[in-house]
């Protein structure tokens, strides 16, 4: 239910202890996520009285509070929004991760789903979700899908669902791939599975349920036990505002790297840096026409493909 409305901002009640702030319309516009991060940083730098914590989404932030009226938070946020300056750079690390497409563990998850939950779902035909994603987007073959996944950096918009699970969005809109989620959802997913739901990529941090179509598997992104050096500072690999770039490996290589992660022999490839928002926004118009054409082709294929 709407608590207050401003230009480009909707405040919604989320019970008596949380307020959901939404920006813009429901579109895959990364500028909305940049804005979310700017507002979240401002809230963390100068938390208003009663704010317990914040949880960003793609175009929204949930504010948990205690002992204050939501109106006081809305007033505080109005002030942040009024003073918000367009940021030109966002601190952003680049994390390079190997991916083994259509590996045996994710195929096992698909098979288990088909055996125990739903046999007739179009997304599990052939014991894999990959062919369904190919078909839904009108790709000529699997290779064309893999090129789209590998051909862009993924923007980690926020972390959520389970501990350390990054929700990631392609920075190059020409490589955007869409797919509907499972219906109903899956009860088992292997650790490290790379999933796609709607336009959003995720990496499963622990064995868990899930609803995204599975493309393959990468390395661990969460380890509370700190078996690898990268997890000793924080049990979570990916932070909001990081970028992830996948490169392709065969499954036996991935399994070897997986072991090396746990044995603390693997060093994650992480580059510190910043993301140049200005340059990015200047670049977008130059590829907009091409992105639009590809999108139209994918929409057409989607319209002809059954939904789970």
């Amino acid at each position, binding site marked *: *239910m*709407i608590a207050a409305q401003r230009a480009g901002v909707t405040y*919604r*009640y*989320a*019970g*008596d*202890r*949380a307020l*959901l702030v*939404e920006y813009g319309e*429901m*579109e*895959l516009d990364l500028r909305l996520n940049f804005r979310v991060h700017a507002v*979240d940083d401002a809230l963390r730098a100068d938390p208003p009285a009663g704010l*317990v*914590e*914040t*949880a*960003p*989404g*793609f*175009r*929204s*932030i*949930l504010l*948990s509070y205690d002992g204050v009226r*939501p109106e006081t938070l809305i007033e505080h946020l109005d002030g942040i929004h009024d003073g918000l300056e367009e940021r030109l750079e966002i601190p952003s690390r680049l994390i390079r991760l190997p991916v083994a497409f259509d590996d045996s563990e994710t195929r096992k998850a698909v098979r288990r789903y088909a055996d125990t939950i739903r046999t007739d779902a179009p997304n599990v035909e052939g014991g894999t979700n990959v062919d369904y994603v190919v078909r839904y987007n009108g790709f000529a073959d699997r290779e064309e899908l893999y090129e789209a996944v590998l051909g862009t950096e993924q923007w980690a918009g*926020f*972390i*959520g*669902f*389970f*501990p*350390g*699970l990054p*929700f990631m969005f392609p920075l190059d809109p020409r490589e955007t791939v*869409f797919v*509907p*989620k499972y*219906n*109903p*959802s899956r009860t088992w997913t292997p650790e490290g599975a790379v999933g796609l*739901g*709607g*336009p*959003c990529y995720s990496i499963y*941090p*622990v064995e*868990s349920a899930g609803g995204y179509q599975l493309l393959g598997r990468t390395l661990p992104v969460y380890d*509370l036990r700190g078996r690898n050096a990268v997890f000793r500072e924080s049990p*979570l690999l990916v932070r*909001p505002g990081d970028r992830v770039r996948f490169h392709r490996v065969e499954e036996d290589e991935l399994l070897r790297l997986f072991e090396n992660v746990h044995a603390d022999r693997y060093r994650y490839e992480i580059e510190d840096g910043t993301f140049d928002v200005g340059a990015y926004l200047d670049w977008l118009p130059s590829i907009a026409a091409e992105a639009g054409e590809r999108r139209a082709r994918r929409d057409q294929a989607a319209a002809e493909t059954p*939904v*789970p």
Partner: protein
Amino acid sequence: MSAVEILEGGIQTTVQDYPGRRGLLAQGFFPAGPMDHLAFRAANLLVGNPEDAAGLEVTLGNVSFRVGADTLAAVCGAEAPVTVDGAEVPLWQSVQVGAGSELAIGPARGPGFRLYVGLAGGIDVPPVLGSRATYTMGALGGLEGRSLAAGDRLPLGDARGQPQPFAARPEYVRDWELRAMRGPQSAPDFLTEADMEMLFTRAWSVNPNSNRTGIRLEGGTFEWARRSGGIAGGHPSNILDNPYPVGAVNINGDLPVILAPDGPTAGGFVVAATVIHADLWKLGQLRPVGDTVRFRETTIEEAVELDRALDESLRPECLERP
């Protein structure tokens, strides 16, 4: 330091604390903590513990343990036979338990589904990420991040306090009323007024697949205000992934799920209503077979007032004096 030795673990017994693991929503951690915060807090209060002390959450009873030193214990929650060395003791009241004694909780036949054990001094397992609450899916908190089993030993803090009963014992039923506020995503943007009316009038059956991540409900289908979820997916329940509050009535396709303390922090489904904080405790007492839920729409003003009254009933000054 004294200890508790588990003799029978039951189907799911975990160490919990209140309000659980806060400040980590943005990293994907829901708070964990007791499903029924009222019974849990009452049990702590009755043994003279500070509110953040850790205790046990027992699912459906059939649990027993031995204490290593004289202590004060309180069991609050679903109706079940509770004994100390075979002699029956009352619920919602603290009792002395001597060193080497065995406290046993029999089967909880209902109404209600969970029981909470407060022990003077609190369960003294090390906090993980700021809390002792067990979150089994993330394998953290409590004892090794898991449910307890026979043979487990838990360290216990120092004991203090006097036996006393709890005055504001809540009523347990089979057909529960949960007060909830509309939204964040309700009518007219996502659902129709007819959908909201159905949500707030129908008696929803609690599905057997309910657990600490969520209470699954059955009983109706929605007509939806939108034709599809647009870029977020084919089904009109789909939205671009966003954060969820505890108590969210999350509509997964056509299945409403009330998100509980171990649930997902974010996802891509509409949240039609949110259970108010003062009624969240009821999630812990819903029996997954046979119980029903009716949502009653309330306002933020009433929610705040009910929460204040609940806090008031848990103040030490409000305990009955024997």
